[in-house]
């Protein structure tokens, strides 16, 4: 530690110290104004002393504040305003203390109290803007901003100008608050081409063409527990895609004018870029597991009856109206199936494995239009029953393990466009028909099972230690 850094250290106490005079002085002003009412006359005696304390606190705060402003991390204009407001608060409060000693008129004291309150509020506001950014308060009003993507979706990502439409908004939403016009932490600004290329006190922020060597990327990739990690861990973080976007942009030369289409794109970056296109952002939930459109709530009484009968009926997630049903401990009796068929629009996942279902029962379910996944395994359902699935256009997963379905039954599912997995282990499908089915369902993952893990000599013997050592 050098001697020079001591003022810097003292300066850093400013944000802590500053709250003392704010509180004390506001109290003094409040006491003064209260004494207008004679009920509070007793407070009068304490007012000058409180002013004195607050005034001294304000002087200390001003000194530390001045030292902090010398660090150069803050925007000059706003610091100036905050600084002079702060100094005037110190002077006026000590002045008021002297006014009490001189026993000036009450009305004048009340007036100065009001003036002081206004000044303290303004000083505090500008101070807050310096630390939290000038849009700190207003950003609470458009609260949505928090969860929103830092890069607003672009209509056509290939036609977008990489810097203007993607990189700049990203930097603006994630970096400007500390590295912009208002504040320049580490003497780094990222709000114009010149500043980005210039870098900060630790040197260049980016090296066009070499993302791994660029300090900006390095800091983004540090573990968030590292104190050099950016953005600081309490601030909103960049997503994986956003980091990949920045990395790609720097690797491709950090060009400020070119369109995305004009830059080289690896296979890996293409899906990432696409995720910034309108409608492409939803990567978390694979489309289709549950229909995208909204649905009305299912009849609560119906669900209660099903639950009573031992069927597990729960929403597929938190507050979704789509439902999943499982017969793990229930039997598929006609009464229960009738209840179940009432969940026409809402039921999307159905596990009715080993519940004693037959074709007749399955027919009762042919109206469950929304079903995406259906597990019919270990039931006596056969070809006839497959006709009941024909109209269930959302079906993606059909499990017919250990059923009596033959190739004729499976054929009936060929018009289900969304179907992507079909399980036929231990079904009645003949081995000879496997090839035919594979041709019939080219896009579907057909699993006929019957896997064998051969027993090797090594599986049943042990390696023995050498007899004598």
């Amino acid at each position, binding site marked *: 530690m050098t001697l020079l850094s001591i003022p810097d250290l003292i300066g850093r106490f400013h944000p802590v110290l500053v709250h003392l005079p704010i509180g004390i002085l506001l109290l003094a002003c409040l006491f003064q104004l209260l004494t207008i009412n004679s009920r509070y006359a007793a407070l009068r005696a304490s007012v000058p002393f409180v002013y004195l304390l607050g005034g001294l606190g304000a002087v200390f705060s001003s000194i530390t504040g001045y030292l902090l402003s010398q660090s150069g991390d803050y925007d000059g204009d706003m610091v100036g305003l905050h600084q002079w407001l702060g100094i005037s608060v110190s002077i006026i409060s000590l002045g008021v203390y002297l006014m009490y000693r001189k026993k000036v008129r009450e009305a004048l004291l009340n007036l100065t109290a009001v003036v002081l309150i206004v000044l303290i509020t303004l000083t505090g506001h500008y101070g807050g803007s310096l630390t939290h950014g000038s849009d700190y308060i207003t950003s609470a009003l458009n609260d949505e901003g928090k969860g929103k993507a830092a890069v607003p979706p672009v209509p056509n990502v290939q036609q977008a100008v990489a810097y203007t439409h993607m990189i700049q908004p990203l930097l603006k939403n994630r970096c400007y608050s500390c590295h912009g016009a208002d504040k320049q932490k580490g003497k780094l600004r990222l709000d114009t081409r010149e500043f980005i290329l210039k870098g900060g006190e630790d040197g260049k922020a980016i090296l066009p063409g070499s993302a791994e060597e660029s300090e900006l990327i390095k800091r983004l990739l540090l573990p968030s527990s590292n104190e050099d990690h950016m953005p600081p861990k309490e601030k909103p973080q960049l997503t994986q895609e956003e980091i990949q976007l920045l990395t790609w942009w720097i690797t491709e030369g950090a060009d400020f004018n070119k369109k995305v289409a004009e830059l080289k794109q690896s296979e890996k970056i293409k899906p990432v870029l696409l995720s910034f296109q309108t409608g492409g952002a939803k990567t978390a939930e694979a489309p289709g597991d549950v229909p995208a459109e909204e649905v009305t709530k299912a009849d609560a009484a119906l669900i209660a009856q099903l639950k009573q009968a031992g069927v597990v009926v729960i929403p597929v*997630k938190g507050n979704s109206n789509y439902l999943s049903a499982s017969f793990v401990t229930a039997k598929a009796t006609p009464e229960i199936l009738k209840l179940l068929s009432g969940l026409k629009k809402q039921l999307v996942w159905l596990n009715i494995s080993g519940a004693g279902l037959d074709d007749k029962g399955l027919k009762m379910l042919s109206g469950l239009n929304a079903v995406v996944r259906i597990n019919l395994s270990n039931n006596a359902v056969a070809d006839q029953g497959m006709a009941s699935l024909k109209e269930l256009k959302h079906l993606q997963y059909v499990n017919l393990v250990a059923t009596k379905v033959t190739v004729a039954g499976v054929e009936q599912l060929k018009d289900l466009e969304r179907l992507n997995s079909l399980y036929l282990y231990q079904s009645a499908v003949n081995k000879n028909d496997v090839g035919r089915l594979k041709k019939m369902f080219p896009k579907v993952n057909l699993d006929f099972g019957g*896997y064998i893990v051969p027993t090797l000599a*090594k599986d049943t013997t042990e390696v023995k230690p050498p007899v004598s050592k």
Partner: protein
Amino acid sequence: MTRDELNAHRLIKEAQETQLRSFTRRHFLKESAMGLGALAMGSLLGGCNFGSKSSNPVLYDPAHPLLPKSPPFLGKAKSVIYLHMAGAPSQLELFDYKPELMKMDGQDCPQSLLAGKKFAFITGVPKMLGPQASFAQHGQSRAWVSENLPHFSTMVDDVSFLKAVSTDQFNHAPAQLLIHTGSPRLGRPSMGSWATYGLGTENQNLPGFVVLTSGGSFPDAGKSIWGSGFLPSVYQGVQCRSEGDPVLFIKDPNGMSRDLRKASIDAINASNEQEYANYNDPEILSRVAQYEMAYRMQISAPEVMNINDEPQYIHEMYGTQPGKACFANNVLLARKLVEKGVRYVQLFDWGWDAHGDGPNNSLNIGLKNKCRSIDKPITALLLDLKQRGLLEETLVVWGGEFGRTPMMENRNGVQNPYNGRDHHTDAFTIWMAGGGIKKGYTHGETDEIGYSGISGKVDAFDIQATILNQLGFDHEQFTYPFQGRPFRLTDVAGKVIHDIVA
């Protein structure tokens, strides 16, 4: 009065006296002081939550603690089978192929690898030890697997490997606790407890979280790695046996009929409910629910946990040893349990601690035999889940608690009699399959000798975050209030490993 009557009379009197004794003056003062204090505290603390945006209601319903619940997000996995190789298998003899290490075999370990490092047993300068198995690339994903796992090597295209896992604990118990509870110290709920707390269980006749052990010994961290920590105790793992009765004393003893059992449980529950009316402790309701579950389990558990009714070809596929407690039997049982709606099955197989201090703890003998005992079962498990259409919704995780050093262990500076490696925290391999995990993918890479990760580094918290993600939870939002603050499985760390999520 007969002798029996006299005894009964004495018992009743004693019970009455015991009850009266609990209402002393001291008792009154204590209760009222605590009560008033708590009242005041409650009203003070009530303000703390004011305006908070937290949307984490306590999911615990004491009367029905295990009812199935929906996750907040769409989960890909409905259940988890976690295969833990207790003792820490050597990544360098299984998945992390390092030809460069072979070149250094027998040389003194460079100082750069030892400076500032602490090992469990290595002291002084150990020798480097080349891979003690030959490797080949497999499947379309060209993943490296050693000759020790010939069956599993056919499965690499269904699996995502994490090659650069690290931990900060180099002793078994804390490292196991860290992986399963998110803290190297005791007292946190295990992952299975979190899962059953958040999701309940589909099958009300079986526990939601089952633990099976093999290898002849418990994992070093003991039962705490499947404990419920500060979560209600109903969410702790239920340890079952794959040999004999699945749960000890599950059968009614001679002379106890089913009706009598029911009557006695009803009586116990009635008295517990009275106790609940007096004390309002939700743990009492949990106890009532558990008695009822135990009664139902008496019928369903022996049925589900009996692997003997599986066909012969399934037994051959898994390589089971009927009547014995072994890993293969446990793996088959795990599949059956998942099929029946059990949420989280945790397997521990002991005996992977290949230090080289004896033949069974050596890389060329003991480790090879351990591999032979798991190779066929884990391969069969993946294939069997796949052919039943269950792998899509079952997340299978395989791993140990840490890795092993590229150096040969020299305990107290003296070379061990057999080839072995010490505990290593910087790099080891874990793999996951099914439950919405990418197929045929490798994430992360270690340096030339497998000493530390150089890309795609992940730790226990990242793995926990990923498992919760697959079950439909945001690990940062999934909390439980305890000691005045919300607790997470991942504490303040962890990132979902999106690269391995399909």
